[in-house]
């Protein structure tokens, strides 16, 4: 039944992918720090000139005004990307803030593509070794989930760069978690390739879980954007108050917090209907497998909580006083629930969804 050679190759490929991800992570980090130094330097000198000319006001270009004073107008921040200094890193032409090509970023993206390809091959072999969808236990779920994050990120890079946007700044914050997940998978969650337990042996496993993967991957990337948004928001506030932060120069290479907010929103707006589908498909499967479509099983509860929190996020963005940072906190809380649902509920809480295959 189980082809152990393929399973072994899969394990080797997982380790290989981790090695390449590590290199990609380093390259992204090098790029960020270079960008940060270049932009930070340019801004510092600009702010210097400005402050000598107009001692009271910070440079409008280097310090985007807090969102309260600018109306939330669409399209305006598009021009920020192309015109503002902070957007230099977004120009998608490979030209860095210092004017030179972003060689490190290019290398990082190539390495990420390679790592994702190796990673995807590992997932494929694991599935072939058991002749089924490669997400029957927590190890496989972690490895496959991380692969989907990688594939989604590489696809996003391709799509957005065609539109003149550059999401490479997210690389460190996406490849990093992918690497962490794989590390956790191989060290703690590892399980031999085997057949499914009867409860999982259904075509709904493919429908329900694959959509959950894509949705979780988008939530992951949105989470990175939301965290960066909060950090960037604090920097902007500090700069606006005339206290340029000393540390974290790489943040200067990232887009302004408003742009990060919009990136997170778009990712979540795509992910939320997918999560809704996950919920509904899961309910249909539960009806087939257990004879009820909803039974408040811990996994169902947390899937519902995640849905409610992201629903709150979407409502918050159109509620006065909740835009921006507060909404970002909700997005982060939502992702914390995703992690609880994956990690905590599988391992700690007994329930019908206890398929972890560990412990």
């Amino acid at each position, binding site marked *: 039944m189980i082809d152990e050679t393929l399973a072994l190759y899969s394990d080797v490929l997982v380790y290989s992918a981790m090695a390449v991800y590590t290199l990609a992570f380093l390259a992204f980090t090098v790029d960020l720090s270079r960008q940060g130094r270049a932009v930070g330097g340019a801004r510092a000198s600009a702010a210097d000139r400005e402050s000598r000319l107009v001692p009271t006001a910070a440079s409008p270009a280097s310090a985007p005004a807090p969102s309260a004073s600018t109306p939330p107008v669409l399209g305006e921040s598009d021009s920020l990307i192309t015109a503002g200094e902070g957007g230099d890193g977004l120009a998608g032409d490979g030209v860095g803030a210092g004017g030179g090509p972003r060689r490190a970023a290019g290398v990082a993206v190539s390495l990420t593509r390679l790592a994702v390809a190796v990673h995807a091959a590992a997932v494929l072999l694991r599935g072939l070794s058991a002749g089924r969808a490669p997400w029957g236990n927590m190890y496989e779920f972690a490895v496959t989930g991380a692969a989907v994050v990688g594939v989604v990120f590489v696809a996003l890079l391709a799509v957005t760069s065609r539109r003149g946007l550059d999401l490479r700044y997210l690389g460190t914050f996406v490849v990093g978690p992918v690497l962490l997940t794989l590390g956790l998978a191989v060290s703690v969650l590892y399980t031999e390739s*085997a057949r499914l337990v009867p409860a999982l042996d259904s075509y709904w496993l493919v429908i329900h879980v694959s959509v959950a993967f894509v949705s979780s991957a988008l939530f992951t990337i949105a989470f990175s954007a939301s965290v960066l948004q909060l950090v960037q928001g604090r920097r902007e506030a500090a700069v606006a108050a005339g206290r340029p932060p000393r540390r974290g120069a790489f943040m200067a290479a990232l887009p302004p917090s408003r742009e990060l907010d919009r990136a997170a929103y778009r990712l979540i*707006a795509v992910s939320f209907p997918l999560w809704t589908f996950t919920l509904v498909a899961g309910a249909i499967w539960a009806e087939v497998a257990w004879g009820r479509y909803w039974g408040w099983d811990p996994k169902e509860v947390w899937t519902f909580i995640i849905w*409610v929190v992201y629903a709150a996020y979407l409502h918050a963005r159109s509620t006065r006083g909740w835009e921006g940072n507060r909404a970002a906190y909700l997005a982060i809380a939502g992702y914390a629930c995703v992690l609880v649902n994956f990690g905590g509920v599988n391992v700690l809480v007994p329930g019908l969804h206890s398929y972890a295959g560990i412990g």
Partner: protein
Amino acid sequence: MADLDTRPREDAGDVRQPHLGPLGLARFAWRQLTSMRTALFLLLLLAVAAVPGSVLPQRDADPAAAARFLDENPGTGPWLDRLGLLDVYASPWFSAIYLLLFVSLVGCVLPRTRAHLAALRSRPPRTPRRLERMPEHRQDEVDGDVDQVLTAARRVLRSRRFRLRDDGDAVSAERGYLRETGNLAFHLALVGLLVAVATGGLLGYRGQVVVPVGEGFANSLSRYDTFDPGTWFDPVDLPPFRFTLDSLSVSFEESAGGNQFGQPRDFEAQVTLVRAPGDASEQVTLKVNEPISAGGAHIYLAGNGYAPVITVRDGNGDVAYSGPSVFLAQDNAYTSTGVVKVTGARPEQIGLRGTFLPTASANPEGFPVSVFPDARDPVLLLQAYTGDLGLDDGVPESVFSLDLEGLTEVTGDGGRPWLTALRPGQTAQMPDGAGSVTFERVERFAGLTVRSDPTKGAALVFAVLAMLGLVASLFVPRRRVWVRAVAGPAPGRTLVQVAGLARGEDAGLAREVEQVAAALSAPLAAGADVSTGGREH
């Protein structure tokens, strides 16, 4: 209505306090409840309130675990129970949150539905005076007179599926009404879903029954081990099917090592089903994930285990009991426990309490345990009691436990409890001529769930509607575009303003305005004298 109140106002002299009155207060409360801020608060509250039910054992999902929790926590347990924390999703406070949320939702959505229906029937709004203040704005000078430009604008906007309004020197256009339609459909479908779920719970039922291989089941209330009817369920609606469990094949993981070893791989039951009296019997396969449907109900394979076939001879030497007894699995290796109540034994009734080990071994401390879930080396460990089983007083008794009151433990040498270990085919004599026990062979049983939920189709329809509405409300852009044409400084030239406004997040608005502006310049420019120039790009 408040104006009809002729009683003197008690606080008529107090002008500083704004007086709302009961109706005003109600209106104020209603406005608060239906505000987005309240909805947001209730959503977050709902998320938080759902958490404890995933951490504490819930009576609804696992009554045994809830009872065990109460036993193990005599101090805090009853308090948590009083607060509804062992039954979160049926508790008043949880219900209060989601019902308030739905009231808030309806209160918000109904006025919006009315407004949207009006908007669907009316024309787009008038053109604002100062288009340059709109989030998207382009200005251009083109060839042609004002009428030509406006005609072109109407054509361009209509082809882009805008709804139009002629507005003097301008055309006002709007598209994407589907966004609001979808949003309203999403919220109303959620209300429908809630109603469907609630009525399903009232009309449906859920029963559980354990059936040993070789035995039958006829669908009637008395046959169920547990039966959980909805409030509006009438037992005469039970579909009159019956079936016999012919076989149950079970397989477990043997090749993979580590924690995969011994995991279940396949459960498959063969059933002879008669859907209604008089119908021909049919052979059907029942598997996990593949329920049988019979007369509006579904039969699910929910569990399985061992039912050792035991024969008991009483003190007189007569066969007092013979048949399969259901032993419930306690762990992944199917170490199972069960009891046998021999009410017909004479001179005294006999109770047996035992542990069944499908693949017996001894753990390092020397205690017998099962090491594999399949029946490779089955051993039945039994203790015996004699006396009164307490079944004649009419109080319902669990078939899985002995009421030790009225029973005396059978003891062997030196007064120690008598304990026997039997392999299939073996017989043990009880001391003092109390009788004998024979372990004939091993059978399996299937745990079956029979369930009917007449509204699950409706729930699915509402869920699908909600999803479609959600997608429309997130991805259909609602946009207004205005085109204003004013005679230019030179004869035959016209100043064109194109402006756009979107509801909510809309990354494509700039492109839309850009393309409308470009389309207005292009066809007019095609027929114009290029040498006049004037346009800059």
